[in-house]
């Protein structure tokens, strides 16, 4: 969780900042602490007045260079539920349209002294870059095909709520792994908590070098407790790409239909869904679908992340959260 970002030649300025940049930076203790904090916040949201004074006076900037519904709305609501001020900047309609560099945009927003910058960007490492050029705590809300750490955390939270213990669970991740930052984050998060992962998909969309079991055979999902369906990104289907011959062929071979699932087998999807492509509507809307649970988890997990990067270690989390929720 704590990651020191410094220039080699520059002496480090002050104590290291807490950022959430990649699941690779997290320990198992970090994950358990974050999920615990999220549960505490979930309890607080059961109350009539849902707003907590926890981050009053803090400024959270949401900087989104890619379109997003779930992630941007849940970060904004998470900050508001914790009484932080929020500022949302989307690249469309901002100076980014005029060719402003990420460095200058970050420096401009940094001049408002934000406590947290939440950033989504199409380029790998953009959050690390912003962490280097500003003084804010940075939370990665998705950088290119690299990482989407809060998605992985909310999926762990969802699984824990549904299944109890995470240790020993078996999850099959199905679809376009190659282009999926969600799959990369999940793979690391699952390894951290002892979940077994099988990657299933078309050959050209399964990187050979990932540290996981991989297979092109959709039958492999039968052994899993949970089937995690990835979005089939239609921009990957452009002329000349040839990752798969057609969406029709993809659906026929790897689409998740009721017939391919065991009764009671749970299904997840990070959204947005392409119904009828990677997932059959009957599956998406079935009682075994955890898809709306994931959205609900997103809010409390992102509250926990904002709280955690700003307040620090486990002692602070337990003491403060307990006091405020009580």
């Amino acid at each position: 969780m704590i990651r020191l970002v410094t220039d080699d030649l520059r002496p480090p300025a002050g104590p290291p900042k807490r950022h959430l940049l990649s699941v690779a930076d997290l320990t198992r203790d970090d994950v358990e602490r974050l999920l615990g904090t999220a549960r505490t916040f979930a309890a607080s949201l059961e109350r009539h007045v849902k707003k907590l004074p926890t981050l009053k006076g803090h400024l959270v900037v949401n900087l989104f260079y890619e379109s997003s519904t779930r992630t941007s709305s849940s970060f904004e609501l998470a900050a508001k539920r914790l009484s932080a001020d929020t500022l949302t900047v989307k690249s469309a309609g901002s100076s980014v349209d005029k060719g402003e560099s990420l460095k200058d945009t970050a420096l401009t927003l940094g001049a408002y002294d934000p406590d947290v910058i939440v950033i989504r960007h199409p380029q790998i490492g953009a959050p690390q870059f912003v962490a280097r050029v500003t003084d804010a705590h940075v939370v990665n809300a998705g950088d290119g095909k690299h990482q989407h750490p809060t998605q992985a955390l909310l999926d762990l939270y969802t699984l824990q709520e549904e299944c109890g213990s995470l240790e020993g669970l078996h999850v099959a991740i199905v679809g376009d792994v190659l282009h999926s930052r969600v799959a990369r984050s999940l793979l690391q998060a699952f390894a951290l908590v002892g979940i077994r992962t099988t990657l299933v998909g078309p050959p050209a969309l399964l990187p050979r070098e990932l540290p996981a079991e991989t297979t092109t055979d959709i039958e492999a999902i039968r052994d899993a407790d949970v089937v995690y369906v990835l979005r089939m990104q239609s921009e990957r289907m452009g002329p000349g790409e040839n990752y798969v011959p057609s969406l029709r062929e993809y659906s026929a071979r790897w689409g998740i239909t009721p017939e391919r699932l065991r009764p009671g087998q749970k299904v997840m999807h990070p959204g947005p869904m392409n119904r009828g492509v990677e997932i059959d509507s009957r599956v998406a809307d079935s009682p075994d679908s955890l898809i709306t649970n994931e959205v609900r988890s997103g809010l409390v997990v992102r509250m926990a992340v904002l709280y955690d990067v700003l307040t620090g270690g486990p002692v602070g989390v337990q003491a403060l959260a307990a006091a405020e929720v009580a």
Partner: protein
Amino acid sequence: MTMLWQRELPGADLVIRGARVLDPTEGIDATLEVRIDGGVIAQVAEKVDANEHRVIDAKGLVLAPAFVDPHVHLRTPGREDEETIASGTAAAAAGGYCAILAMPNTDPVVDSSATLGALVETARREAEIPTGFLAAITRGQRGEELTEMGELAETGAVAFSDDGVPVASAGLMRRALQYASITDRPLALHCEEPTLSRGGHVHEGRVAAELGFAGYPSIGESVAVERDLSLASFEGGRIHVLHLSAAESVDALRRARDAGVLASGEATPHHLVLTDDAVRSLDPNVKMNPPLRAERDRLALLEAVRDGTIEAIATDHAPHAAHEKDVPFEAAPFGVTGLETAFASLYVHLVKPGLLSLETLLERMSAGPARIFGLERPRIVAGAQANLVLLDLEREWTVGEQPFRSRSGNSWLLGAKLQGAVQMTLAAGSVVHE
């Protein structure tokens, strides 16, 4: 005919005493004294007269033939904010070089006699050390029509290259090989199959898979190397494979050379020292084309440098403006600088740990590249022009502590501690750095 140009500098009158004189190609390794009269080595002996010359006490230092870099981007014309002939050659002098060759992927591309002629004129005014120029294989490096290679060779082109981009069409490559034969100049080839590299930023391997980078697989280079070796074999043409990065490419080159194909190859210091693991830092200063590859590739390159399959070490010095590299990895341009760090980086990472002999390193940085491009070989014998480098193998220094002579600072070694420093350089008889 002359293929190297520089500004006029006075010939040195010097005596160098106490140095270990090391010229592997001439078979010299002894403590000797060297007298230079008017830029020409007059005497190499156990004891030489100083006459009135300035005497340099070089005890504990190594005196070797100065280096030749066959692969430098001087960014002139077009991007003089990143490098000029003056700044690039000053950087080369500081790195121990007595000659460099500049690539033609400038703006405009060096694809006409007029553009090349203007560069030659600039070099005669500005270049601190002898500088040569490659001209493009195809007009505008667009891969469609051949340049006027005959006239370009007469104007002074050392070789032909579309470096930066591959010659994608096999048919056009064949025609280039056929036509270049009238000029007696090699083709220096950037081997990349674009339908396999597909704009990948990083070697396709574990690191790219984990970080999510678009991968440029090893075979994206090696199938192009094999294609061009086959064509060179068929046409009897001479090719030089630029910046080799993949084990498969090295194997192909070795096989072709064994079979008598007129092919040579070069490797860069960064490919010999780093692997794609370095990309985990997300530092744009480890982004270059071809990308850093796996450890097995690095070891294959090293073995090829040892056994002579790779005859030249080239920096592929590629300066970039600070604001262009101060962006996330994927947005950054390809390329790193290397002229001022090449020797020290290889000395500290390869020679000191015993992976490469000092003699082989010196040969591959000097005689090897000179031989490939038909340049006069720097050597330490009486009668030769003084092209010498004085090396302090003990001195430690930190990269970036002193400002670079290059106009750009996109070094992959920024902040690194190195051992082995260039104390003095003589190029074409003149002291160009001390």
